[in-house]
C-alpha cells in the first residue's frame, strides 16, 4: 500500500541549524496494516508522516501509495488517498463554519468543487447518522458553528471527517496528546472502532507506549531519522511496556546509545 524507498530529508541544509530529519528510510506498509510509530522528540516520526502526506517533499528517495508514484505530489494532490488527524484539535476543522459544512468539505475530499449546492436534505441525513455514531449528542447541532465546540468534540469530528469518505490511508498524528484523559480515551475508542470497521490502512504516531502496544498490528521505533526497530504483531501481543523498555535498552547498547538517552526515552514514555 505504502512504499518508501531510501527517503532522505534535511532541514536548513548547510547552516548551523541543519537537521537531518530522515536518513535513508525504507518502509513498506501493507494494505489494512495498522502501524504505530514511537520515538523520542526529534526522532523524525512527524517528518515521516508529513513526507507520506506530502506536506513536506523529500530531498531524495521515492514514495508510492497504492502503486502510484507520488514523490513529487503536493499534499492536496495526495488527499484523494490520504486523510489526516492532527494533534491540535483546532487544525482539522474550520471554526467559523457549521458542522455540516465541515463534513461536506471532508466528504468531497479529493474531488473538484463546483458552484453547485450539494448540501441537501439527503446528505444532511447521512451526516446526522454518521455524527450519531460519535455518541456525543452532536447530531442535532449540525447547524452549529464548530468554533463553539470543545476540543474533544472537535477532535471526534475531525476523526469522523477523516474516515467519512473511506481513505486509502489514515494518518493519526498524536491525535489524543492535546486532550484531557477522558476525551483522549473516547477518541482512542472511536479510532479503534473506525479502523476496525472500515479495515483502514493506518499510520499512528503516539507518545504512549501503552497505546503503541495495545493498538495496531505493527510498531516501529524511530531514532535520529532512522527506523531502529520493527515489531510485528506476533511479538507485540506478548510484550509489556517493561519489555518494550528493555528492548530499547538493548538496542541502545547495540547502537551505542548513551544512558542519558535511555533515561529520556523512559521518561517520555512511562
Amino acid at each position, binding site marked *: 500500500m505504502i512504499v518508501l524507498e531510501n527517503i532522505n530529508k534535511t532541514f536548513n541544509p548547510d547552516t548551523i541549524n541543519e537537521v537531518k530529519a530522515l536518513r535513508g528510510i525504507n518502509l513498506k506498509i501493507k494494505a489494512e496494516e495498522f502501524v504505530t510509530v514511537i520515538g523520542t522528540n526529534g526522532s523524525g516520526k512527524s517528518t515521516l508522516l508529513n513526507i507520506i502526506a506530502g506536506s513536506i517533499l523529500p530531498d531524495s528517495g521515492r514514495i508510492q501509495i497504492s502503486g502510484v508514484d507520488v514523490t513529487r505530489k503536493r*499534499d*492536496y494532490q495526495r488527499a484523494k488517498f490520504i486523510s489526516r488527524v492532527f494533534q491540535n484539535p483546532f487544525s482539522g476543522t*474550520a471554526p*467559523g463554519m457549521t458542522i455540516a459544512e465541515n463534513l461536506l*468539505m471532508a466528504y*468531497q475530499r479529493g474531488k473538484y468543487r463546483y*458552484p*453547485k449546492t450539494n448540501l441537501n436534505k439527503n446528505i444532511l441525513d447521512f451526516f446526522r447518522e454518521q455524527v450519531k455514531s460519535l455518541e456525543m449528542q452532536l447530531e442535532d447541532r449540525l447547524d452549529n458553528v464548530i468554533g463553539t465546540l470543545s476540543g474533544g468534540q472537535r477532535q471526534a469530528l475531525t476523526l469522523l471527517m477523516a474516515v467519512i469518505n473511506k481513505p486509502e490511508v489514515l494518518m493519526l498524528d498524536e491525535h489524543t496528546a492535546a486532550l484531557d484523559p477522558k476525551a483522549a480515551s473516547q477518541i482512542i475508542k472511536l479510532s479503534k472502532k473506525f479502523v476496525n470497521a472500515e479495515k483502514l490502512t493506518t499510520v499512528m504516531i503516539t507518545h504512549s507506549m501503552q497505546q503503541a502496544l495495545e493498538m495496531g498490528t505493527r510498531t516501529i521505533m524511530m531514532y535520529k531519522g532512522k527506523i531502529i526497530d520493527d515489531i510485528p504483531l506476533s511479538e507485540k501481543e506478548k510484550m509489556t511496556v517493561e519489555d518494550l523498555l528493555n528492548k530499547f535498552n538493548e538496542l541502545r547498547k547495540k547502537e551505542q546509545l548513551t544512558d542519558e538517552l535511555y533515561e529520556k526515552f523512559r521518561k517520555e514514555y512511562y
Partner: protein
Amino acid sequence: MELWIGALNLGFLYAFLAIGTYITYKVYNFPDITVDGSFTTGAAVASVLIIGGMNPFIAVVFSFAAGACAGFVTGFIHTKFKINGLLAGILVMTGLYSINLRIMGKSNIPLLNSPGFVTIFEEYNPGINHELWILILVSLMMIVVWLLLSRFFQTDLGITMRATGDNPVMVSASGINTDKMKIFGIAMANGFVGLSGGFVAQYQGFSDIGMGVGAVVTSLAAVIIGEAIIRHRSVFLKIVSVIIGSLIFRLMVALALLVGLDPNDLKLITAIFVLLTLIASGAFSSEKKKINFPLKFSLSKNHRRLFASLAAAVVLVVLFFLVYKYTFQTSVQKKLTIGIVIANDSDILIKTRDGFLSEIERIGYKIGDDITIIEKNANGDIPTVSTIVDNFINQGVDVFLPISTASTQAVMNKVKEKPVIFATVADPFVIGVGKNNYDHPPNVTGIYGTMPIKELLDVITSIYNRKLKLGAIWNPSFPNSVHNIKVLQDVIAASGTAVLEGATITNSSEVYQAAQSLISRNIDVFFLIPDITVYAAFESIVKASRANKVPIFTGDVERLQDGAIAVYGYEYFVSGMQAAHLVDRVIKGENIASIPFENYKVVTVGLNYDIISEFGISIPEEVKAMSNSKVENGKFYKNEIDPSVFAAPSIKRKAALFQFTDNALLNETAEGVRSYIEKNNFGTKYNLTIDNKNAQGDFATAQSIASEIVAKKYDYVVTVSTVAMQAVANGNKKIPHIFAAVTDPLQSGVAKTFSDHQPNLTGLATPQPVESTLKLMREIFPDAKKIGMLWNPAEANSEICTKKAREAAKTYGFILKERIVTNTNEIEEALKSVIADGIDIFFTSGDVTVSMAVPSIAVTLLKKRIPFITNTPADIKDNVFICLGADYFEVGEEAAKILERVIKGEKTEQIPIQLFVPENLSINLKIAKELDIDISEKIVSRASRVVR
C-alpha cells in the same frame, strides 16, 4: 429628500465595493489594497466602452472582468511568489495607476453626454422623482445580487472558499489547492470592486484617476458597520449586513454634511467611528473575555443581540429625526440661496470664492439679508462633491456656483434645471458642458479660460530676442496640465522661437529635483503652466532659479511675490468677480440659455523688479508699459480693476450658424467661423450670441431649420454648405445671410453675377482649385500625357469640376481619360479600365462618391506606380501623393469677417460675393521617393503640409 435618496443610491453602488472587501477581508482574512486601483480600473473601462458606444450594462461586465484581472494578479503574486498580501496589493495598486491612465488616455473622462445606466433607467421612468426611480431599480438590482451571491456561498465552491479563509490547512488536507482558491476569491472580490467603479462612474457622470483613493478604508468601514448591526452566521444576513453598512456609511456622510460638519473632519470621524465599532463589536463577540460594564452588567448571548438591535434602532431613530428636522427646516427658507461648491482647498479656488463674495456685495447684495450663501468644500474627495450637491438640492439652493472643474462636473450631473454658474474651469468643453460659448445646456453658464500661453511666450521672446530653451514641469495626472503643455508645444512649434525641455513629476517632493534636472539641461528660463502640484513646491523652483539665475515665467499673479520674474495670466479673484456679475444677471431674470460662457476679461501682467535687478535682466519698455502689477522692494502693487468691464453689453444680437451635415469640410468651415468670432470677442464686443444648427444631412430637417431661423427672427444667419444656403435663401428675404463652403453660388441660383445677388445675402464661392491643380501637374510632370478621372454625373458639383478639368487639360496639354460611376461599387472596375488606358496621373476633384473610396484607390494606384492627386487636403493621410484644396478653416474665418462687416453696419447688397480659395497644398514625399518623382524644392516649400 434628494440628499437622502442620493446618499442611498451611492450607498448601493458602493455596496459592490464593500462586497469585494467583505470577500477578501472577512471571507479570506486577507486585507486587500488592490481595491484602491481596481475601483478606478472598473470606472475607466466602463467609461471608455460607453464613450465607444457600448451598452452601459454590458460595459460594467467588462468592468467586472477588468477588476477580476487585477485581483488575479494580486492573488497570483501573493501565492506563487509568497509575497506578503499587503505588499502584493500595494504593488498591484501602484501599477494599476499607470494602467488606468493608459485605459482612460487622460485623467478624467466625462460621461455627461453619454448614456449611462441612469439614462436607460430614466427611459422606463413612469413619472416619479428621478433619483427615487433610480433608487427603486438599484435596490431591486441589489436584491438580485444579494440572493445570487448568498446562494453562491452555500454551494460546494462557496463553502470551500469560506473554509479556505477559515482553516487553509484543513482545506488543503481535503484535496484543495488553497493557492488557486485564494487567487479565485481575490479575483472575484476585485471583480465586484470593478463593477462598483463602473456603476459609480456612470452615476456621478465621469471617471477620474483619483476616484479610488481611500476605497479600501471606506469599504472596510461599511463592512464593519454592517457587522456591528447584524451579527449572524447565516451567509444571507452577512451579505445583507455589508449592503446595509454601505448605505449607513453614505447616510452618515450626508448627515455630517447636513449638520454642517467640515468634510475635512469627516475622515477623522470615520476613523473614530470604525474604531469604536470595532471595540464595541469586540465586546459583544469575544468568547473568552467579556468586558464587564459598570454595575457588573454582563451580557448573555441573547442580551447581546438585543443590545445590538437596540443600538441600531437608536442610530436609525436619530438619523430619521435629523433628516426630518433638516428637511423641514430647509423647506421654510424663502430667500434666494446661492450654493458654492468648492472641490478642494487649493489657493486658486479659495481666491475665486473671495472674488465672488466681495464683488456680489459691491454690486449691492447684502449677504444674509438679500441672499443666503452656503458654501461647502469637498477637500478633494470626489464622492463627497456629489453628496454636497445632493445636500444643496435638498436645501433648496436656487443658484449653483461650482468652482473648479470637478465641482462643475458633479453639479452638471445632478442639476438639470436650476441655474448653474461655474468659475475657474480651464475648459468646460472637454468635460462635456456645451460645445462652444453659445451652444451650452440651457441652465448653465460660467467663466473659464486657460493661461494665455502664446502671449506669455511673446513677452519672453520680446525680452530675450533670441531662440530660447524653455523648461516646464508638470504633473501628468492633471488633465489641465497635460492640456496646457500640449498648447505650449503647439505654440512653440508655430512660433519657432523656442524649444521645450520638460520634466514630469507625480508629487511635490519631486519638484526640486525636476527643476535641477532642467537647469542641468541648460534651459534659459522656466516656463511654468498652472499646476497644483508644482505650485505646492514653488519655493523649491525659486531656490533653483535664484541659485542659477534662471528666471521663472508663469501665468499666476500670486507667484510674482514668491519669486517669479514675470507673470502673464488671469487672476482667479477676477474669475470670481466676473462670476458675481453673471449671477447678478441671472438673479435679475436674464435667460441663462442666452448668456454665453465668458473667458476671463482681465489679464494681469506683472513684473518682479527685485528679481529683474538681482538677475540683471533688461526689460524692454513696451513690456513694462503692458504691466498692471509689480513687485518692488518686496512689496506688491497692482492697478485697480474697473468693474465696468464685467458688465453685460447692451444691445443683444443673435446669429444662427447653420451647417448642413457633419463632414470634415463643413465642420472645419463652421469651426473657422466660431474661432474668429471667439477670438475677436463678438460676444462682448457686439453682444452677439450664436446658435448652432445642424441638419445632420437631412433635407427635411434643413428646411425646418430654415423656417425656424426666419420665425425666430435671428439678426444674422451664416450658412455652411450649398444646401444650407439654398434652404435659407429660399424662405428668407430679410435677415442678412452670409454663406460659405459653396462651390458655385451662380449655379445655385442665388446670384446672376458676383455683384448682382439676392440683396439680403452675400458670401464666399470656394470652388475646387481644378485649374491650379492641372497647372501644378504640368510643373511636376513635364512629360505626362494622360490624366485619369472618375466621376459621378449625378453630382452637380462633380460635373462642374469635370468641365473645368476638361478645359484646363486643353490649356496644359493633357488628355483627359474619363470614366463614369454611379455608385462606389463600380469604382474598382472603372479604375482598372482607366488604368488600362495607360494614364500617367490619376485625379479626383469634388466628387463625393469617389472620395469615399480614396484609401483603396490610393493602394491600387501605388501598386501601379501612378501618382494620385486630389482636391481635398484631408486625403493626404490616405496615401495620396498631392492634395491641393481649399483651407476651409480659413474660409470660415473669412465668412466671419464678412459677418463682422455686416454687424458694423454694411449692407449685404453692397458686399459682392467673393471668390475665395485659400490654397492649401499637401505633398507626400514618401510616395514621391517610391515612385521616383523628382519634385523641386520650390514646390515643396509652397506646401503647408509635407509627409516625409
